[in-house]
């Protein structure tokens, strides 16, 4: 069993969102960078659990990014994994990132490629499906459970208003979400061990992005809250009906 977990670096969930340079750049001053929670909590931890059950499994981590990503990659290695690969390029768009990872995945011959369901910054939800498309293997999005038995995988995937249990043959690309695993905190042994794990840096392929981010904007601020007395919810219903006109 050979597993590749795709990781991304994102601003912390509580980071202040602001833009500069004529709204073209995200303000990174004071921003704490973390592993994208979906990648870390669900994809990575589930892969680690699989390896714990099957110690012969090989677990590699991959991220597309510059040297500033090494800190979060080491954090991922502190949780688990045998080695990490950093593709040394600024991630420009999802197709660029997916093409870089697909090349690594093709060469490594992985049975499973796991990603988070989306990143919490660009919310693209695209890289996993694109990797599968480029490798011509199946993709399961929004997977909430994964069990392996030999060459086949049983997955629970979310559908609108319910879920489906499906069985598929490997290799697969899976977009992981809540339910897959539980967040873990790295222990001291993991943190110390991570320092000596290999972190390979590879140079990117030349890939033309398909899209380009032009500018950002913040949503218009709310007008402020209109308070209604607790003993008069009828007034709230009147406002929703007559003023907001939504019920």
């Amino acid at each position: 069993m050979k597993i590749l977990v795709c990781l991304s670096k994102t601003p912390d969930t509580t980071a202040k969102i602001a833009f500069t340079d004529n709204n073209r750049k995200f303000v990174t001053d004071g921003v704490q960078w973390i592993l994208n929670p979906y990648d870390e909590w669900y994809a990575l931890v589930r892969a680690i659990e699989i390896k714990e059950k099957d110690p012969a499994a090989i677990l590699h981590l991959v991220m597309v990014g510059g040297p500033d990503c090494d800190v979060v990659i080491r954090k991922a290695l502190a949780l688990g994994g045998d080695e990490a690969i950093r593709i040394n390029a600024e991630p420009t768009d999802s197709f660029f990132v997916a093409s870089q990872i697909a090349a690594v995945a093709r060469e490594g011959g992985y049975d499973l490629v796991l990603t988070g369901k989306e990143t919490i910054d660009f919310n693209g939800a695209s890289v996993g499906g694109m990797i599968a498309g480029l490798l011509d293997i199946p993709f399961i999005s929004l997977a909430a459970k994964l069990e392996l038995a030999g060459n086949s995988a049983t997955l629970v995937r979310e559908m609108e208003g319910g879920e489906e249990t499906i069985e598929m043959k490997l290799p697969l690309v899976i977009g992981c979400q809540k339910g897959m695993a539980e967040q873990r905190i790295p222990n001291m042994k993991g943190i110390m061990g991570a320092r000596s794990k290999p972190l390979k840096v590879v140079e990117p392929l030349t890939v033309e992005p398909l899209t380009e981010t032009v500018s950002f904007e913040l949503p218009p601020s709310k007008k402020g809250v209109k308070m209604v007395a607790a003993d008069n919810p009828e007034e709230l219903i009147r406002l929703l009906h007559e003023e907001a006109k939504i019920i």
Partner: protein
Amino acid sequence: MSVLIFIDHSEGLIKKTSLEALSYGAALAKQINVSAEGVLLGTVSEELASLGKYGVQKIHQVSQESLNQLEAEQYIRIVAAISESTGATVIVLSHTNTGRAIAPGLSARLKAGLVTGATALPDTKDGFLVKKNVFSGKAFCTVSIKTPIKIISLNPNVYPVVTGTGSAVIVQENVQVNPTGMTIKSISKASGEIPLTEAEIVVSGGRGMKGPENWGPIEELAKLLHAATACSRPVADAGWRPHHEHVGQTGIAIAPNLYIAIGISGAIQHLAGVNRSKVIVVINKDPEAPFFKSADYGIVGDAFEVLPKLIQAVKKLKGVS
């Protein structure tokens, strides 16, 4: 040349998100002066020609029952083939579970630039610029698609369903459907409930509800308003409510017309999942709850006292006793 709109369905009925996508795709087709066509895989009980009222001229259908079940690879292959044969320059899907499963693969296959979670019609005056949500609803960005074929997945509940008159021509497509590599073991569907991402009104409860046994009034209020029920992360984590009801940064992101939050303090991670709601009502006994800052209407009060009165008021409005 055409805008090709992917029409999704479930249990024989076309999804509301697809009616939004049809309306959006038809408006876009008009804007760039091409035809609007739909593609539907599988079978539905509705009469397809009537979808013309949303502005599509033609619908390509592959009427094979095995396609009623989502299998991404198969869908991607067929939609790509129909897109090529119809000369589609834009493919429109919904940013739903199905859209997430197939849009990225289509993009890779057709080398077509993709924007997921679009929130408005593209600006096509000079290039092809699509606005989308980023930072989990905390900001927007504008993305330029640079490829000849473009793919857009539309966020649910951001574009209105526009109904006119008209009838669509149905074209039965003879596409080879490959034997599937996927076996469905079981399907569990909460029938009768409104899917969260499609709901126009959502009633949501947090830790302030104190326990799963107290959800009766939330469900009653939701039923009266034809709303879906949701919850905050601690509630789902404690097992009071199923995980698929969890809205927030790590749960589902929703954008209903009305979000009623009861006993939820409004942590930034929760807001990330709901701040695209058009109107937010917050009911919380703590006047300092941060959620009030993002709300449109608020009540400071005990949920257990406010809810029964609120239910009475809705009953009175709706004329039910």
